[in-house]
């Protein structure tokens, strides 16, 4: 039992929860969006500075559980410096990583450090915690900052 829990709450995740990276409101971001999970009340705001098709800065604010906070924190690290197109395709890979069938071995290629979230697929109730920041990122980039909801 404890193994499954450790699988979910990896040391990296606990660390990002305690000390979230890029946890700040930047001056004049080019893109931003709010994300909200009405089921649990988790809130996140994602801020981006996009220049010449590249995410040159990413940060966030909000409150939520360890999974959602760590996910937002690690997302900002993962997309910083990436072309917008790559950030969006990372969204797809991450989504597949956490929503894949619990039986199958997770596909971790191309997701880098985000592979620590593979344990989430064992906990269907927690998938939305992990994907909230990513839905919000997508909304900031594609939907003109419309509030992203997980429900």
């Amino acid at each position: 039992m404890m193994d499954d829990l450790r699988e979910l709450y990896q040391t990296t995740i606990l660390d990002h929860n305690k000390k979230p990276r890029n946890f700040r409101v930047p001056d004049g971001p080019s893109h931003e969006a709010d994300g909200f999970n009405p089921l649990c009340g988790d809130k996140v705001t994602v801020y981006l500075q996009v220049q010449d098709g590249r995410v040159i800065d990413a940060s966030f604010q909000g409150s939520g559980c360890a999974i959602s906070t760590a996910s937002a924190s690690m997302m900002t690290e993962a997309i910083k410096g990436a072309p917008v197109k790559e950030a969006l395709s990372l969204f797809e890979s991450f989504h597949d990583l956490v929503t894949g069938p619990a039986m199958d071995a997770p596909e971790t290629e191309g997701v880098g450090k985000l592979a620590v979230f593979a344990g989430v697929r064992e906990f269907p109730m927690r998938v939305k915690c992990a994907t909230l920041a990513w839905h919000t990122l997508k909304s900031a980039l594609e939907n003109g900052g419309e509030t992203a909801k997980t429900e």
Partner: protein
Amino acid sequence: MSFDPYAARSDFPILERTNRGKPLVYLDTAASAQKPRAVIDAISDCYENHYANIHRGVYELSERITRMHEEAREKVAAFLGAAESREIVFTRNATESINLVAASWGRQNLAAGDEVVITTLEHHANIVPWQLLCEEKNARLRVVPINDAGELEMHSFEAMLSERTRIVAASHVSNALGTINPVRKIVAIAHERGIPVLLDGAQAVPRFGVDVRELGCDFYVFSGHKLYGPSGMGVLYGRAELLEAMAPYQSGGDMIETVSFEKSTFKSAPYKFEAGTPDIAGAIGLGAAIDYLAGIGLDAIEHHELELTAYGKELLEAIPEVRLIGTAAKKTGVLSFVVEGIHPHDLGTILDMEGVAIRAGHHCAQPLMERFDVPATARASLGLYNIREDLDHLIAGLHKAIEMFR
């Protein structure tokens, strides 16, 4: 008569199950209670031996099931201390009961500028129907504040009532905090001014004896599934003269007297509020739940849960990282808390892996969470089958979580 919760546990088949491979420690009775064998058997018996539609057939089976359905109504009436069984309307749940009153009584009795008084402690079920009614009528929703312990500010309540107040709707016991509200006082103060009172008893009826005539309330609602009965079965008690004066809520079969394409006439209460084929087995199951509780005695259950609540409170208060939310002098059955540095959802997942089922979230009481400035709480809630060991498991799980997040 002394009550033995260890013996009572064997009445609940689900308690023999495991959760994530560990013995189930069920601490979410405020969300829904588990069902005793007597209720499960009554529902099976209904379908296996007695089932037909009610109020329709002239054959023996239909006559008998109609009688069983109405006997369930009589049991509910006696359980609540209602004067007559026609004061008991069967609904789907407490939420539907409140919607019925807001839609029927509310539409008839509210006008622009009128006021509805509710409290900060309410479940969304006792907020949103009134909010929609007030929007429709251009009326005003007023909310009685609470103190830091989670108790109603009764002076504010009294001051809030005016000649524009049309109804007061309050919970008997708070689902999120366990506060037992001074409902007799609420009714007395409102009635002095001629204002009717609806009480949401969803969390009260499973925990202690309730007598609607002694309380003097005008409407009382509860859900069967929280009373160890089936889900999909709720109750609205309304004083006969109020129910008789109210228009139907939904319409269709079974609630009519005559129908023509020009005009229909309706049955009297409670039948005019029960359109279509109801949850027949649900009513019979609810009756069985009431019989089961009567066999134990609600006084014994009350005593047991108060004792367990105090024990749980003591254990939680001994953990420095834990902050109890809701410390009313009079509370029962519910322990809501937050743990420093750990979000309630993470706690819920960690406890789940230990076999412990609690609720983590806003408990359908978002304004209340805002009042305490927390996004959510962890809530352990008790039922008659809980024992001290359940709370010991909870505490062991909490220590594990605190260790992990340190």
